[in-house]
């Protein structure tokens, strides 16, 4: 009885925050604390429902909640809550709830508070609906809505020109990804229509289980592009990954994430750490069976993810802005998640498990990092790390929680046991998977990427900690510890960052593996791999000891480097870390991406072409329109002379017309 009752409530999960959005948007000004209480209550309710559903699914993973309603033709609206969706739902609503509580105090001085809470409520609603959508079209609609909310929230302080420009950049860059995603959907739909023999009422064409049942046939369809024979499945999955690149900030569409720090820090924590950027990873995980059967796409995912992880890490070590370092860290960690998914070509479904595990853990400690940064910025007033230092004396709680988050991010723990921060377990799993992949296919590039990125991660995050919290203050600032309403969410997230990984490691991955092999989506991953032409191995750990300890060694090495440079101040970076050093300049200027992307490409090429076309069109269209006008006036000037005003001419015309008419009718009658 409880089961059926629970299923009825599943649709409330995205609906309640949406209602909160409407209420806060219209009535927020009149409510105390800017109408924050309504979204908090709504998200809390969603969280409770998701948690209950998750526990129920943990008990029997077979009872997936699936409700579909026909929309029109073969399209449907529906809810699918399987293990993958359940953990995402719980994480999203939990982190969103904590950040909302934090924001009550953080945004207390801001006059636009009702707008802020309304927009974050809408964002939460959109993200939740994205997670539990059961067909790819509804997924895409929620995806777009999430992108819209991101635009609104990044440009929250819209009077600042840099914020408005950053919001526009974010929207346009993700738009490039969205176009690729949509193209993938279109190709998929047309192929499915062809394969299923036209529209049949009663089948839901774009629902995930329907799509998966057509994978073998999709893989068999071949297309000829530039002389290469590629299967349709590869094209579709690559396009889907293109959408994920835009939304999750992989190279080359990662340029919007650092600029997105113009928004309030709570926005950065919510959107760019925990939820929106993970939508891309969730997309690849959701359509993972398609990726398994198209190994070339998985290779692209792995390489791009690994490269992004390394690439962003190199830029993170030279940034001086507190939030910029964290932004590059987010890009880097998302690269890790993509890398983990890409390892699916060796370890099959477990790749989804390790990647989503890292996603959840990353959400906790990255949100914690952002919120702590927000706490520091709120108290001290500056974001530049060169002006900070010694904040630890003034804000002990923030310092401790941020240190915990840094340990989680760098991945500290003791291998082979259950002792360690969450980040340790999830990052370790990915690096192990990369090692197994390397053994299996003799391709060590992903493994090298992941190890190098781990080293850089440790360096930059401990650089941040030491520069900010230790030593003597480098400028005059007045700081104080944040109020309890801000430190309580910090503490909760710190606890989760510490213990969540160790507690749930094995159970989590096994739970997620159930996603694609239960009664709802019953797939034989091995056969799918057979389509792709490779076989899978078990991810059991039989690695040599060195490999097992390598992640920890690398993390400690990074800590040591940062310690020596920034805490003990033994090694002076001096000329090495100035603009005279070309390498430093390259990194600091972010590989000149701004110049290449914005200045050259957008403003130069695209705007130039648009301006040229506009001029050409202007000339053509103007001449046509003006020509019509002149023609009309000219003709009418001549024609108005019929009106002589003399009656006799009218009579003449009348009789002439009548005679001609009679003749005409007679002729027509003769012809017919």
């Amino acid at each position: 009885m409880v089961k059926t009752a629970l299923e009825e409530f599943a649709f409330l999960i995205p609906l309640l925050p949406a209602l909160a959005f409407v209420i806060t948007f219209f009535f927020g000004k009149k409510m105390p604390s800017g109408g924050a209480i309504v979204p908090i209550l709504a998200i809390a309710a969603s969280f409770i429902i998701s948690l209950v559903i998750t526990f129920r699914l943990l008990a029997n993973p077979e009872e997936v909640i699936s409700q579909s309603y026909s929309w029109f033709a073969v399209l449907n609206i529906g809810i699918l809550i399987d293990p993958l969706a359940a953990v995402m739902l719980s994480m999203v609503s939990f982190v969103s709830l904590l950040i909302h509580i934090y924001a009550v105090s953080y945004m207390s001085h801001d006059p636009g508070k009702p707008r802020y809470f309304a927009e974050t409520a809408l964002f939460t609603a959109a993200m939740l609906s994205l997670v539990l959508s059961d067909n790819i079209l509804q997924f895409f609609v929620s995806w777009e809505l999430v992108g819209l909310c991101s635009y609104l929230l990044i440009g929250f302080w819209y009077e600042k020109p840099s914020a408005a420009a950053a919001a526009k950049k974010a929207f346009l860059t993700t738009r490039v990804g969205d176009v690729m995603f949509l193209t993938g959907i279109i190709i998929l739909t047309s192929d499915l229509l062809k394969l299923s023999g036209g529209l049949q009422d009663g089948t839901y064409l774009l629902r995930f289980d329907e799509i998966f049942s057509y994978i073998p046939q999709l893989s068999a369809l071949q297309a000829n592009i530039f002389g290469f024979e590629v299967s349709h499945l590869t094209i579709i999955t690559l396009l889907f990954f293109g959408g994920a690149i835009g939304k999750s900030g992989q190279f080359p569409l990662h340029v919007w994430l650092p600029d997105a720090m113009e928004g309030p820090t709570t926005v950065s924590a919510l959107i760019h750490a925990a939820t929106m950027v993970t939508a891309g990873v969730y997309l690849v995980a959701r359509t993972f069976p398609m990726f398994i059967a198209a190994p070339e796409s998985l290779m692209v995912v792995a390489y791009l993810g690994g490269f992004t992880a390394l690439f962003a890490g190199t830029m993170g070590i030279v940034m001086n802005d507190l939030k910029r370092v964290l932004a590059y860290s987010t890009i880097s960690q998302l690269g890790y998640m993509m890398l983990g998914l890409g390892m699916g070509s060796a370890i099959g479904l477990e790749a989804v498990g390790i990647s989503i595990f890292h996603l959840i853990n990353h959400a906790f400690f990255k949100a914690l990092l952002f919120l702590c940064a927000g706490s520091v910025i709120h108290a001290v007033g500056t974001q530049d790390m060169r002006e900070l230092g010694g904040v630890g004396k003034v804000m002990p709680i923030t310092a401790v929680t941020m240190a915990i988050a840094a340990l989680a991010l760098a991945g500290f723990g003791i291998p082979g046991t259950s002792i360690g921060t969450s980040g340790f377990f999830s990052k370790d799993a990915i690096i192990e998977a990369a090692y197994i992949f390397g053994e299996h296919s003799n391709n060590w590039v992903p493994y090298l990427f992941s190890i190098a990125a781990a080293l850089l991660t440790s360096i930059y995050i401990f650089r941040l900690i030491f520069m900010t919290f230790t030593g003597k203050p480098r400028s005059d600032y007045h700081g104080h510890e944040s109020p309890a309403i801000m430190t309580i969410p910090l503490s909760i997230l710190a606890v989760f960052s510490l213990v969540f990984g160790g507690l749930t490691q094995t159970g989590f991955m096994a739970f997620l593996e159930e996603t694609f092999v239960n009664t709802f989506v019953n797939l034989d991953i091995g056969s799918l791999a057979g389509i792709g032409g490779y076989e899978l191995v078990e991810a059991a750990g039989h690695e040599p000891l060195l490999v097992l300890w390598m992640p920890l060694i690398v993390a400690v090495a990074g800590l040591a480097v940062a310690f020596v440079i920034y805490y003990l101040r033994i090694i002076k970076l001096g000329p090495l870390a100035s603009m005279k050093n070309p390498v430093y300049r390259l990194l600091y200027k972010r590989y000149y991406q701004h110049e290449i992307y914005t200045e050259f490409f957008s403003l130069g090429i695209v705007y130039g072409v648009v301006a040229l076309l506009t001029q050409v069109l202007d000339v053509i269209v103007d001449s046509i329109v003006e020509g019509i006008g002149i023609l009309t006036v000219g003709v009418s000037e001549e024609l108005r002379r019929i009106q002589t005003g003399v009656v006799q001419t009218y009579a003449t015309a009348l009789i002439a017309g009548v005679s001609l008419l009679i003749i005409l009718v007679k002729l027509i009658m003769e012809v017919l």
Partner: protein
Amino acid sequence: MIPLSFYLGLAALLFSIGLYGVMTHKNGIRMIMCIELMLNSANLNLVAFSSYTNTLDGQVFAMFSIALAAAEAAVGFAIFMAIYRMHDNINLDELNILRW
């Protein structure tokens, strides 16, 4: 006997003579006279038809038509009096206020 169409042809000829007069003459009185000519050609038509179908309805109709022609001529002349008072002549070419 003469076929009916000759009478009709004669009436048509009279009509077009009257028509030409209406379309050409500038003087108002002349125009009214030509209109009378056209009316009479129609009467001729009526009577011809009545004669050749052995009914008398057409001739009754023709009588009414003559009476109407008289009334219409009277009104027409009254209008011309008014025009004369305004323009001091009844040259129809000058009544072109409604031109372009």
